[in-house]
């Protein structure tokens, strides 16, 4: 069971959380303008990296907040957790943040 640092509540056990998959995939502002391939990319294509991964977590049985995390998928070690709209405080943060959710774009 992972130990996850909720940005609002601090370290909490994994069972209080739901993982929401890859982070920073913004819902397109105008889905109707996308080709089928572009829409499929948004819906289904995932990085699935072996290494540093940005992902969404929801502290569903805690404060209820969604937040983002960066985790190494080989060691399962968390490098950072950060609120929606924030940038991670981590050395490894780099190109992966090229896209963001609308929440972050406005933040």
């Amino acid at each position, binding site marked *: 069971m992972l130990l996850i640092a909720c940005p*609002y509540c601090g370290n909490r056990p994994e*069972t*209080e959380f739901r993982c929401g998959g890859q982070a920073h995939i913004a819902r397109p502002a105008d889905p109707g303008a996308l080709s089928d391939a572009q829409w499929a990319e948004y819906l289904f294509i995932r990085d699935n990296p072996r290494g540093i991964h940005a992902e969404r977590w929801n502290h569903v*049985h805690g404060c209820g907040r969604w937040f983002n995390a960066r985790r190494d998928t080989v060691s399962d070690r968390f490098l950072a957790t950060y609120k929606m709209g924030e940038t991670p405080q981590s050395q490894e943060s780099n190109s992966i943040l090229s896209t963001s959710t609308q929440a972050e774009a406005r933040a």
Partner: protein
Amino acid sequence: MLEALYRTARALPLGRAPASDPACSGVQITPAGAEARFALRIRDAGASAAGLPLDGPINSVRGDDRRWIARLGPDEWLIGSDEAEADQLPAAIAADLGERAHAIVDVSHRNVGIDVSGPLAAAVLNAGCPLDLGDAAFPAGSATRTLFGKAEIVLIRHDGATPRYRVECWRSFATYVHGLLAEASLGVGETARR
């Protein structure tokens, strides 16, 4: 008047059972009586509303047994009060919050309270609750949503000489939560060291 009348007739799912210590383990497990509760949601809360502090840290509770407010998240509070206060409280809060967007939802009948107290209360809770309930991590005045076995609860630790906790769960989970508390208290003090 009618309001007051119907309130007295509330049929609580765990009944109005007296405090019990089914396992003689020194842990009292007591279903709470009829109380009022409100879910308050607001983003830019300010310091207080209707005398209830809104500026406490997340996962803390303020107030006393009669009237308490637990901050469960950045924009979420759970408020408990006597039934007598219930009719005025939402309006008083709303009045203080004014134009700021918020929600106050009556959840008095959604929530069921169970009080758990005694020297081994934390050990009983830790049968299903994965949190660190030690004095440093979860002192009196703490409150949080968490899990108890397969049920979601809100766990509040009150002041007191002996550890005293309030477990709040949704109505239909009360039997399960109460059952698991009772089961956990059975032999909670037994160890392999004898």
